[in-house]
C-alpha cells in the first residue's frame, strides 16, 4: 500500500536514480524505487548512514539530479523529467540548505549580493527595494543588517547557515530541503540554528525535508521520519512512533535497541555487503529468512501512517512480540 497522493505537497512515486559507476559501464543505484509524500506544513526527517541516498533523494526532489525513473508530482505536475527551462517556475517553490555553510556561498560575492540574486532572478523585487528586502531577511534569521556588505569568509559557520536559511526564504518556497544543515556547526551554535528551523517552519507553514544522520536532531525537529538504507526507503512514520516503536531491524540497529554483531561483517567495502536481490539489508540482518532472499519487501502500513518494508516486521507489530533470530529460523 502506498501513501495517498491527495494530501501531499510533493508526491514521490517509484523514484530511482543511478549513477555511472566504476568500472565503466556499470551503474550504481543510488535510489531504488522510493515512494513518499511530503505533506503541507510538516517537517519530514530523512535518516540513514552516509551513502544511503539521503542527499541524492533530496537533490532529486529539487531536480538538481535528473531521476532515472519515477515521478515527482507538485501541483499535479510531474517534474521528474522536465528540462531546466521548464523547471524555472517550480524553482522558487523548492529551495535547499546545504551541509557546508562555507561552501554554500560564492566566496566572491557579498552576503547582500547572495541574497539579492534569487529575488532578481525570479523578478520578485526591483533593485531599489533590495536593501530593505535584504535587511528584512537578515533580521528574520536573527542577523544584523550590516552583514549585507560582508563577504562569506568574514562570517562564522553558524551565521552563514542563517544566511543560507534567509536565502532560501527569500523566494517564499513551499518546500525547503535541508541537507545535514547543522552537522557542520559547532555545538554551541547548533541549538540556535535548530531553534530557527523550528520557528520558521511554525511561522511560515512551509514544508521541510530535513536530512540528517543525527537521530537526536531528527527527533527534536521532525514530525515524521523516513529511514533510508542503500537507496531504499525501509521505514517511514510519525517521529514519536518510529523512535518508540521502530519496525525495521535496521531502524532498531540505528536506534541502538538492537545490537549488530560487533565485528566487521559487511564492513570491507569491496565485499558487497548490500544484497542486490531480495532485501537489501539481507546480509547484515540478524533476522533474515529465505523469503528475504527471494522477494524484495515493499512498504506496508503496519500501523496507521507507519509503513515498513520488512517481511518480518509483522512479527514485531504485536506488542511484546520478538521475532526469533535468523539462525534459529533457518535451522
Amino acid at each position, binding site marked *: 500500500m502506498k501513501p495517498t497522493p491527495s494530501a501531499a505537497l510533493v508526491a514521490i512515486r517509484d523514484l530511482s536514480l543511478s549513477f555511472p559507476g566504476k568500472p565503466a559501464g556499470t551503474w550504481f543505484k543510488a535510489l531504488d524505487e522510493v515512494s513518499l509524500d511530503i505533506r503541507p506544513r510538516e517537517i519530514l526527517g530523512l535518516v540513514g*548512514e*552516509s551513502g544511503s541516498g539521503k542527499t541524492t533523494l533530496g537533490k532529486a526532489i529539487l531536480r538538481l539530479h535528473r531521476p532515472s525513473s519515477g515521478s515527482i508530482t507538485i501541483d499535479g505536475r510531474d517534474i521528474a523529467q522536465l528540462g531546466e527551462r521548464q523547471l524555472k517556475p517550480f524553482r522558487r517553490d523548492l529551495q535547499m540548505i546545504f551541509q557546508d555553510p562555507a561552501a554554500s556561498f560564492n566566496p566572491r560575492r557579498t552576503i547582500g549580493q547572495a541574497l539579492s540574486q534569487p529575488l532578481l532572478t525570479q523578478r520578485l523585487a526591483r533593485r531599489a527595494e533590495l536593501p530593505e528586502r535584504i535587511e528584512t531577511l537578515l533580521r528574520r534569521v536573527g542577523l544584523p543588517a550590516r552583514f549585507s556588505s560582508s563577504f562569506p569568509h568574514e562570517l*562564522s559557520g*553558524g*551565521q552563514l547557515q542563517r544566511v543560507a536559511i534567509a536565502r532560501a526564504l527569500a523566494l517564499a518556497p513551499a518546500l525547503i530541503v535541508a541537507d545535514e544543515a547543522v552537522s557542520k556547526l*559547532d*555545538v*554551541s*551554535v*547548533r*541549538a*540556535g540554528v*535548530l*531553534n530557527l528551523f*523550528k520557528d520558521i517552519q511554525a511561522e511560515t507553514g512551509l514544508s521541510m525535508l530535513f536530512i540528517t*544522520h*543525527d*537521530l*537526536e*536532531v531528527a*527527533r*527534536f525537529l521532525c514530525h515524521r521520519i523516513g529511514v533510508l538504507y542503500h537507496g531504499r526507503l525501509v521505514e517511514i512514520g510519525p517521529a514519536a512512533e518510529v*523512535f518508540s516503536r521502530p519496525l525495521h531491524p535496521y531502524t532498531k*540497529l*540505528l536506534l*541502538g535497541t538492537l545490537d*549488530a554483531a*560487533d*565485528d*566487521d*561483517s559487511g*564492513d*570491507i*567495502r*569491496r*565485499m558487497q555487503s548490500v544484497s542486490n536481490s531480495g532485501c537489501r539489508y539481507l546480509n547484515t540482518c540478524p533476522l533474515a529468512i529465505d523469503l528475504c532472499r527471494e522477494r524484495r519487501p515493499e512498504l506496508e502500513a503496519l500501523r496507521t501512517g507507519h509503513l515498513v518494508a520488512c517481511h518480518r516486521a509483522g512479527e514485531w507489530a504485536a506488542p511484546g512480540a520478538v521475532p526469533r533470530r535468523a539462525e534459529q529460523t533457518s535451522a
Partner: protein
Amino acid sequence: MSDVLVDIRQLTAGFRSQGRTLGIVRGVDLTIERGEVLGIIGESGSGKTVTGLALLRLLPENAEVQAERMVFDGQDLLTLDDDGFGALRGARLAMIFQDPVASFNPAKRIGWHLHTIFTRADEAKARSVATPWRERARAILHDVGITRAEETIDLFPHQLSGGMLQRVLIALILALEPDLIVADEPTTNLDKLVERQVLRLFRDLQRRLSAAIVFITHDMATAASLCDRIAVMYAGQIVEIGRTRDVFEAPSHPYTQGLVRTSLALARGEGGRLAEIAGELPNPSQLPPGCLFEPRCDKAFGRCRVERPEPFPGRHGRAVRCFLAEMEQEPS
C-alpha cells in the same frame, strides 16, 4: 611513585603567519594520571587539537610552542632534543587522528603498516620476536575485531572503510603499547553505528594497555560514555575540568552549562526550544579584554569585562575559570 604521567603548566601555542603569531592555545595546565581517560571537549578552534599535537611535538614548522613545564613520566620534555623525542613517540606516546583514511600511507598495504610498526615496537622495547609478522598481524587484527584479517593484510588503505581503518589504527597502537595515547576526534568521521563499535574498542584498548588516553572530541555524549575526567576548552583555555560525572551533572562554567543543557535536551528527546549560547567564538586576533567567554555569557557582570579569570580549584580536582565559581567557593 607518583601517579601523574603527564604534567603540563602554562602551555601556549600559536602559528606564525605573514610575520604575526596567531595564538591558539593560551596557558593550558593539565595533569594526566596513569591509565586514566581524559576527555577534552570543545568546538573547532578551541585549541584542543593543537594541545594534543603540542603534547607529541607534532605541530608544523610555523608553530610556536611554549610552556613552563612539560614533564612526561618524570622526563622533562622541554629539554629533550628532537631525536630524543622521536624515540619517545611510538614507544611511549602515540596519537590517533581524526581521519583514519588520511592516516595511512596510501601507497602501502595494511600489512606493510603493521610490519613497520612491529619493527618499530620491537626496536623500542629492545626485543626480538620469533613469531612471523604475518601471524602477529593476523592476531592483532583479530584483537580489534577484524575477522577477515588474512585478506585485510593484503589490502590497500583505500580499499577499507573508515571504520575498518580506525580499527587497524587501534591495532597499530595496540602493537606499540604506549603509555599515553592522544586520540583526536577518532570517531567524528564515522557513521553512528561504526562509532559505537569503535568506542567500544577504545574501552578495550584502555583496559588492555592500561594506558592513559587523552580523548579529544566535540561530542558530549561520546565523552561522557568514555572518559574519567573531562576538560572543557574554550578559545584556547581550559574553562572547566573535573570528574566526568561532576562536570555533566553540575556544570559550573556558563559555557559548559550551555553545552550540557543542549545535549541533554536532545538526548532526552525534549520538545520545545533548545537552550542557546548566543554569539560566536572570539576572533583570535581580537580577543575581548576580560573573560574570553564574556561576550556570549548571559551571566557576565562588570568584572568579567575587564579581568580575565584564573582557574579556581574545587573538590576532586575540579577547576573552573569563572568568577562565579570563585564566588561560590569563597563565601564572603
